[in-house]
């Protein structure tokens, strides 16, 4: 009887969803702008030091990875966590308070990150650019998330943790470990009295720094762009389609496989560098082995749709998720291919790498977050999704954008790699660097257009979401499976 009046509390999930939308737009507008800067370098000069590629590029990566994606992860966690554990976060004032504090401190941290990056304050370690005061705040934010997570788990009515929860827990533990070790740093002012109070240098030097950095960098891809996104698809695709996951056993096997294998693959970022040869080989081998657990999850998702493929035609939400799963397969095949030593000799430092990153992040990560938030919208507001047609249009515009992005980067990257390696009959380099830049110009323009199309889709997503909030088509009760959509 007690449950009759009890409802899931989506307050914090909603707040994080709003942030995901805002950071998604901000991060990808910046990304598109710097893509055009590469094609048309004059754009670098429009806003003085604040508009240069070197200033905006870390801002783009940080805002999309740690603003957009993390907000999406937190939003979906506060939704999926409650539902699969069958507990309302409002049942404990303490846990609910912790979750709210988690949001506000995260918001302050994200704002500090944006401002400091714009001012050019950075540790210069890729994806770990925050200086030590913000690193300390990050730890606090992360611990608060952990408290909310394990608080919810402690209160649960459901004994068994659903596979999505395993993935969220892995995200929490994985990032905690990676972040702490990679951000070990010496605050220069406090230790030596030199430099600004917020400045720091890495505790590691030379090759060791590179190794720790890429152990972190690659596993940031693992535990921010992969693991929590799998958590999302394991919940949202079965729920939206009304089909239980094809094989729960396969989901468990893939989980342990991914956890074990991913952590060893980071050294593929350092092939042909000064790290020991065996470590490079190990990175290569584990990257290839990584295909198995990745495809295990992706195939499990596609097979979940068995006998229900008509839904792919009927529902744009299912389209987003099935294509996300497909892009995950593409990306997790492409990555291992790039980490094979002979392929890496051609691919490393070329545009094929950002091409690979973006078919994963746009096609897999962003599509899943978009699908997750639009699935949640009718449950948040007890209203129909504003427009199905708009969602269909968004899907096709963004898919076209992604295809333009990665296909142009494949061509650009391989062209670039071949030109750098080309020698004449005497062994002299056949091309100078500027020759490659000239050849690549059209592909850079196409990439910019691809990004622009994706950003248009983001505005359609935001419009659809906010119109859903105020839609007059109110629902009597929460939809069980397929989300109701207006024409």
């Amino acid at each position: 009887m007690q449950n009759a009046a009890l409802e899931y509390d989506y307050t914090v999930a909603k707040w994080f969803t709003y942030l995901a939308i805002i950071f998604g737009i901000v991060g990808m507008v910046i990304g598109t702008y710097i893509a055009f800067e590469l094609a048309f370098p004059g754009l670098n000069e429009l806003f003085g030091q604040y508009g240069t590629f070197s200033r905006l590029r870390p801002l783009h990566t940080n805002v999309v990875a740690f603003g957009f994606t993390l907000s999406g992860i937190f939003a979906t966690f506060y939704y999926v966590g409650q539902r699969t554990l069958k507990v309302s976060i409002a049942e404990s004032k303490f846990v609910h308070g912790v979750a709210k504090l988690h949001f506000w401190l995260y918001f302050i941290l994200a704002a500090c990150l944006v401002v400091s990056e714009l001012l050019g304050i950075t540790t210069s370690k890729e994806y770990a650019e925050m200086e030590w005061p913000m690193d300390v705040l990050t730890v606090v934010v992360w611990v608060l998330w952990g408290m909310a997570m394990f608080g919810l788990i402690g209160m649960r009515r459901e004994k068994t943790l659903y596979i999505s929860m395993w993935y969220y827990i892995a995200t929490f533990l994985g990032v905690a470990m990676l972040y702490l070790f990679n951000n070990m740093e010496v605050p220069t002012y406090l230790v030596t009295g030199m430099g600004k109070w917020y400045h720091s240098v890495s505790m590691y030097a030379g090759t060791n720094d590179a190794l720790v950095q890429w152990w972190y960098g690659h596993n940031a891809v693992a535990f921010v762009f992969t693991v929590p996104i799998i958590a999302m698809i394991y919940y949202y695709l079965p729920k939206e389609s009304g089909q239980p996951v094809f094989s729960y056993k396969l989901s468990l096997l893939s989980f342990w496989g991914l956890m074990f294998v991913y952590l060893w693959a980071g050294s593929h970022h350092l092939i042909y560098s000064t790290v020991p040869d065996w470590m490079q080989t190990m990175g290569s081998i584990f990257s290839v082995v990584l295909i198995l657990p990745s495809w295990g999850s992706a195939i499990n998702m596609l097979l979940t749709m068995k006998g229900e493929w008509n839904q792919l035609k009927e529902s744009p939400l299912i389209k987003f998720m099935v294509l996300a799963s497909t892009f995950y397969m593409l990306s997790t095949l492409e990555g291992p291919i790039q980490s094979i030593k002979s392929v890496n000799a051609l691919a490393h430092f070329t545009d094929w790498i950002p091409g690979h990153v973006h078919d994963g992040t746009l096609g897999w990560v962003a599509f899943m977050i978009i699908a997750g938030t639009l699935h949640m919208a009718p449950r948040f507001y007890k209203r129909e999704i504003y427009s199905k047609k708009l969602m269909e249009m968004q899907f096709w515009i963004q898919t076209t954008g992604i295809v333009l992005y990665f296909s142009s980067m494949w061509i650009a990257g391989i062209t670039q790699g071949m030109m750098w390696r080309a020698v004449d009959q005497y062994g002299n380099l056949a091309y100078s660097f500027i020759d490659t830049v000239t050849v690549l110009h059209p592909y850079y323009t196409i990439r910019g257009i691809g990004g622009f199309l994706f950003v248009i889709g983001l505005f359609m997503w935001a419009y659809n979401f906010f119109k859903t909030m105020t839609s007059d088509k109110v629902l009597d009760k929460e939809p069980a499976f397929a989300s109701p959509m207006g024409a």
Partner: protein
Amino acid sequence: MEAIREWQAYAYFFFTVFLVVMLYGYILHLYRAEKKGTRDYEKYGKLALDDELTDAPVEVNETRENEKNENKEQS
């Protein structure tokens, strides 16, 4: 240097065999547990579908239930 390479080769062989055994061992464990009836893994797929607060849990968390009962008795 040669000695290190030899050790690397032994370690490589050992870990390959070990990991293959672990992998297939886990698969075997999953299927055996289901065949013996100790666990039905596939029912957990329902956790995503029947996720209303009013839905009956797939497996009740007895720790929470016990605590609730104890609190009732005390009051």
